[in-house]
């Protein structure tokens, strides 16, 4: 991935030349995904469809 460096990039961070795996980001975003799915299921199927006077026509 060294060709992905731009010409003017400073070379102070050696890590920039290797493939960087954002494993922490993947973990955080997996948590976010789980929260979204659980919250959606609650709001849509329990709160919304459980209410009185569902509009059916």
């Amino acid at each position, binding site marked *: 991935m060294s060709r992905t460096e731009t010409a003017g990039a400073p070379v102070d961070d050696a890590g920039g030349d290797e493939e960087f795996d954002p494993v922490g980001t993947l973990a955080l975003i997996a948590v976010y995904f789980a929260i979204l799915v659980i919250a959606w299921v609650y709001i849509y199927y329990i709160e*919304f469809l459980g209410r009185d006077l569902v509009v059916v026509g």
Partner: protein
Amino acid sequence: MSDALEADQTFYDKFPAESRVVRSSLLGAFLALTLGAIFGIIQTLHRTGIFRGLIASTDYYTLLTAHGVFLALSFTTFFLAGLFTWAVVRSLDRPLVNIKITWTWYALMAGGMTMTGITILAGLVDAVDMSADVLFTFYAPLQAHPLFYTGLAVFIVGTWLAGADWFRTWLAWREENPNERIPLQTFMVLTTMIMWYIASSAVAASVLIFLLPWSLGLIESVNPTLTRTLFWFFGHPVVYFWLMPAYLLWYTVLPSIAGGRLFSDPLARVVFVLFVLLSTPVGIHHQYLDPGIAEGFKFISMTNTMFLLLPSLLTAFTVVASVEYGARQRGGTGVFGWLRSLPWRDPAFTGMMLAGLMFAAGGFSGMVNAGMNVNYMIHNTIWVPGHFHLTVGTAVALTFMAATYWLWPQITNKPIYSSQIGLFQVVLWFIGMALMSNAMHAQGLLGVPRRTAEPEYSGFDYPVAFGGFEELNVQIAIGGTLLFLSTVLFIGNLVLTMGNPRVSGIAETLRPALSGPDDAPEVLDDLRIWSGIAVVLVVLAYALPLAAIINDGGLFGPGVGTYPVWIDAAAGAIADVTVSAAWSLVDALALLGSRLLDAAVAGVIA
């Protein structure tokens, strides 16, 4: 290119004339923020029933209109104008082509907004037959004073000219650098403005063809569904117009502040292209419960809206990965442990990160808003302002304030007066908004409506869930008060910063991306293609609904009256408008001042 050169010079050193434009734009934004915050705290306390002594409930809607227009249109757009001017000049590393043009658009924007603002605030003064209590959506047949619409039109023309200014500067740069990729920041500015031109054309048409002539009495009536639809044609992409400057900061400034680099320049470009394509053909999702629009059009709009989640979800990944890269560079380890290695003492960093976190929460309520039939549950409840106080009210506003701590020294050579106050301020905003927005969402699920001076009713009580109506009101009031205090601290810190002497050696560098622009397909930079596809998508999404609305109700409505909220005694005062406008501003400010003073005195005595 520019990044290597800029290391020891600030933007102020290199581009003093452009710095002035950026400063003036930001100051315009902060003036709007101050006014908006004052109206905000009055509303919060009034609506929740904590303190209703300052204004009558009928005047609540004047302040609500002002709060919406000053914050959602003025604060956001002026900040955007300053930021984009900075971003274009910095990333192209060349001055604007003609600074006179630049000051012309600034004057148009400022003049237009002043006109509109005066018209709104005149609603507080009974002696003046002028007001615009129509809220920032100005749904006909409620009618504002003509000056309100005129000011909006002038303001929008100002933004168009600003966009032309940035495009022109880019074209001049391209002549000088024929084979270079568009620098990322400029790419973001240009794509955002393409979206803005497409979106604002509809509201400009609505104002110039229908609302303004109607308010002047030239046409008798309008078709409310048509003007509403034209408003939302503009009204959804406008939220991306607020958001794109925040994205620009998250993509291009935040990684450097964190000690990292942008994870992927190509994906950033893809995200902005997706916004150009998808942000406009979705406006009908604000009209899910409109009677005049067929269900099929609503479903198409929902599908587009859901796919519009993609660029934001991709942004979440790219920005967090860029920050994580910084943390790893700073020695961070572990799956979550790296979070400890970030510069949390820096208000610019912490503010932007908290803003991003709030945006993640706002993402959820946005998904609910986007769901077509679930809209029955939350449409026009206070859930909706709960949502957009997370997005525009925090993701955007808090990012702007946080970025100011980083940007202001670069455009003035004056260091921030107090970083500690800055840090406290951004955290306070986060806490205040967490309280207020959470309670607003919860009240929305109880069915509490938005946009009302007194949400309690004589004939019924709200159901109890997630805490009762009253305790949620207290939560909203506490949250709103903290937000007001946070704004005061922000403005105070900035004013004290302006008194600092200029220093040298505070230049900051923005570092290039890990995966740079060379990795991005050339076609991403072909703005003509994306503009063309965007227009086609908009036509596909809107041609049939608009045709159906006009076919059903006619261009000028199916027999609808006119309900001016600006004439008490029917007087054709249009000729006197300019004179009375000036006086009414003086009156309005004096009145507001005296009422605030009264309230303060009452508070001291109590």
